[in-house]
């Protein structure tokens, strides 16, 4: 129940997304009375849920790389900060994007918790803010030309064209809803993924829903509620857009928007692009409103001077300014709210993460090719990634990828496998085959999470995944390891106090 309370801010964010963004996929069809609102709402809700549950992990993972909010109260506050920013900016008449608010709020959490904001990931995300409207403009311009050429060639009757457009708007709306769910669920539930309160759920042995998928399902239902309860008003007053659109242009805009959302959420497409020797597509939630604006602009520019005159450039200017103001405001709101929730309500808004260059960590670093000569062994754990990185930089200069590797290897989370914990593990959804491997480690202690992972992999092939394992399997493995770590970890505050004495914290490396 408490977990659901913490999820409420995410659900609120989902509701606002459903209320506002459903108009991007079905607004033109409903606004022009080509489709009934009830039909649009049902189709939108169903396909948002399907998209979120089946393909939501890709874009959501992109946000996770920016900052893994690791405490439920922190996730609650981060989502609340994003929702509050959105609500305030919308009420103030300023254009705001949920994506930008969420990114700002996560950066605020990183700032508050002393975690590192991955600048390369942040720059990739910012690049998509510019790229997604540009891509939408290109898609829209290309599609519009294609469709117009097709119509000129086939010369359908005005009524036949109208019927085809109606069917096209429904299909495009369905595709748009699926893509919206797949891409934007990351905005709604992305911050809750690292601190997910759900365990894997099997329904009649037929359908297996991971904790992440259950989160996405819940978020998607919140979006659907938003669609049903509030989007009608937004859909029927699509007048305030950049320029007046014909039904054909509206169809092209919806398809272009859906394509952009799909491009930034499809793992398969990203893998295909990599196979062609191109850089991977960043899988990140993008703003559907901005994609729509890009698409409208693309069609406007295609019509030459006449189209350019029709575009309301002041609206465009305000939207572009939102790229800067929304994340900055969200980061500030997030920081202040985290401070309040932690100090006034006494909630743990982040789990402190400590780092230490222990002897096994140094051995491991040498094994993976990091020059360890210049690294002094650190006798005391350092609290917070930013502080540890500062200390590390004073020792040696590494490139960002090496730095990230050192951080991963140096992270400490002392665990002792004990009988009490093993009994507690029986009440978790971890299957007996996996538990046997954990039980075999009874009496052993580990300082770093990777040490536990390696020890488990040595105990059972179940805990060892090939390097080419599918993403879903890797995610499941990570969730299972996190479950073991949570079960056997000492109290979080203790992590910083534990003496990092290698002999007392025997590690497989040290033993070996």
């Amino acid at each position, binding site marked *: 129940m408490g977990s659901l309370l913490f999820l409420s801010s995410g659900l609120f964010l989902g509701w606002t997304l459903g209320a506002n963004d459903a108009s991007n996929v079905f607004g033109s069809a409903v606004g*022009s*009375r*080509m489709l009934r609102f009830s039909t649009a709402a049902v189709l939108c809700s169903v396909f948002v849920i399907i998209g979120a549950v089946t393909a939501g992990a890709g874009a959501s993972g992109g946000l996770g790389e920016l900052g893994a909010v690791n405490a439920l109260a922190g996730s609650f506050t981060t989502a609340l900060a994003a929702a509050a920013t959105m609500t305030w900016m919308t009420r103030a008449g300023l254009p705001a994007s949920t994506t930008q608010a969420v990114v700002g709020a996560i950066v605020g959490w990183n700032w508050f918790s002393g975690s590192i904001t991955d600048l390369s990931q942040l720059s990739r995300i910012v690049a998509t803010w510019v790229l997604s409207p540009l891509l939408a403009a290109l898609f829209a311009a290309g599609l519009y030309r294609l469709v*117009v050429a097709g*119509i*000129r060639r086939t*010369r*359908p*009757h*005005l*009524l*036949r064209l*109208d*019927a085809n457009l*109606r*069917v096209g708007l429904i299909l495009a709306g369905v595709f748009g809803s699926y893509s919206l769910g797949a891409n934007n669920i990351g905005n709604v539930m992305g911050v809750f993924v690292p601190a997910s309160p759900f365990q894997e759920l099997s329904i009649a042995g037929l359908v297996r829903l991971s904790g992440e998928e259950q989160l996405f399902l819940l978020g998607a239902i919140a979006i659907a509620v938003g669609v049903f309860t509030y989007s009608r008003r937004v859909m029927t007053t699509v007048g305030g857009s950049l320029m007046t659109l*014909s*039904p*054909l242009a509206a169809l092209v805009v919806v398809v272009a928007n859906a394509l952009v959302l799909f491009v930034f959420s499809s793992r398969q497409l990203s893998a295909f692009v990599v196979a062609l020797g191109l850089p991977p597509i960043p899988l990140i939630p993008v703003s559907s409103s901005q994609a729509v604006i890009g698409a409208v602009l693309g069609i406007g520019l295609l019509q030459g001077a006449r189209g350019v005159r029709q575009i309301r450039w002041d609206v465009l200017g305000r939207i572009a300014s939102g790229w800067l103001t929304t994340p900055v405001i969200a980061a500030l709101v997030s920081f202040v709210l985290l401070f309040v929730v932690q100090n006034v309500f006494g909630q743990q808004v982040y789990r402190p993460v400590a780092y230490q260059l222990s002897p096994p960590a140094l051995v491991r670093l040498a094994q993976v090719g990091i020059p360890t000569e210049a690294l002094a062994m650190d006798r005391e754990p350092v609290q917070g990634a930013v502080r540890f990185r500062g200390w590390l930089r004073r020792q040696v200069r590494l490139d960002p990828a090496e730095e990230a590797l050192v951080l991963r290897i140096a992270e400490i989370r002392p665990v002792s496998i004990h009988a009490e914990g093993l009994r507690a593990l029986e009440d978790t959804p971890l299957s007996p085959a996996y538990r046997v491997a954990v039980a075999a480690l009874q009496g052993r202690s580990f300082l770093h999470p990777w040490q536990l992972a390696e020890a488990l992999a040595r105990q059972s092939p179940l805990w060892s995944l090939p390097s080419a394992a599918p993403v879903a399997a890797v995610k499941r493995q990570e969730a299972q390891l996190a479950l073991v770590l949570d079960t056997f970890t000492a109290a979080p505050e203790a992590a910083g106090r534990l003496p990092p004495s290698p002999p007392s914290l025997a590690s497989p490396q040290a033993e070996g």
Partner: protein
Amino acid sequence: MSTPALFAKTRFLEAQIDEFLDKVSEGAIYFQRGIELLLERGVVEETERKLEQLMQLKERANELRRAVVNTLYTEMLIPDFRGDVLRLLTHLYALLDATKNVFQELLIGYTGAIEGAEAIAEVKELVAVVAQSLQEAVRGARAFFRNPEAVRDHINHIRVYESEADAITLRLMKALFASDRPLERKLLARDALEVIDGLADRAEEISDELSILAIKRVL
């Protein structure tokens, strides 16, 4: 409305619009044939049959127009064009109505107004040109539904036929008033020429309407 029902309704409406345009087109043919008969043989059974045919056409066209407009509005089809379609069909129906009225007037009040083989040949030429302008208005309307880029050509044809009709009317009038016929016969013949020429003017009004609609329709 389900998708198959939507397409079935669309096909039915397309057929109704096509039939309506066929009726207006047939009206132009009957008008031309009727005037020719009137000029050649006067008011005979065959000439009156043409008026009957025109009246039946008008009735059917009116039914079709009402049915099409009703369906467009009740089924909420072509939301951005149904007003235009309503206006276009109303204008075309008014043209057919005017065609019937002109023929009826000539049949009743202007029998024998045109005299002389040369004048009759010229009036036949005028009626042919006017009928062509009516046919072009129908073709323009068909193009509006299927191929809006082609509307421009039909508009141009209507304008050419209209000015040609004006030229023939002027020539006929000059010849008429230069003749030594009694004034009341001259005035009667002038009125007959004016009502025939007036149909080409109405076709030109439709061409003005079509030119605006085509701009809206062109992608």
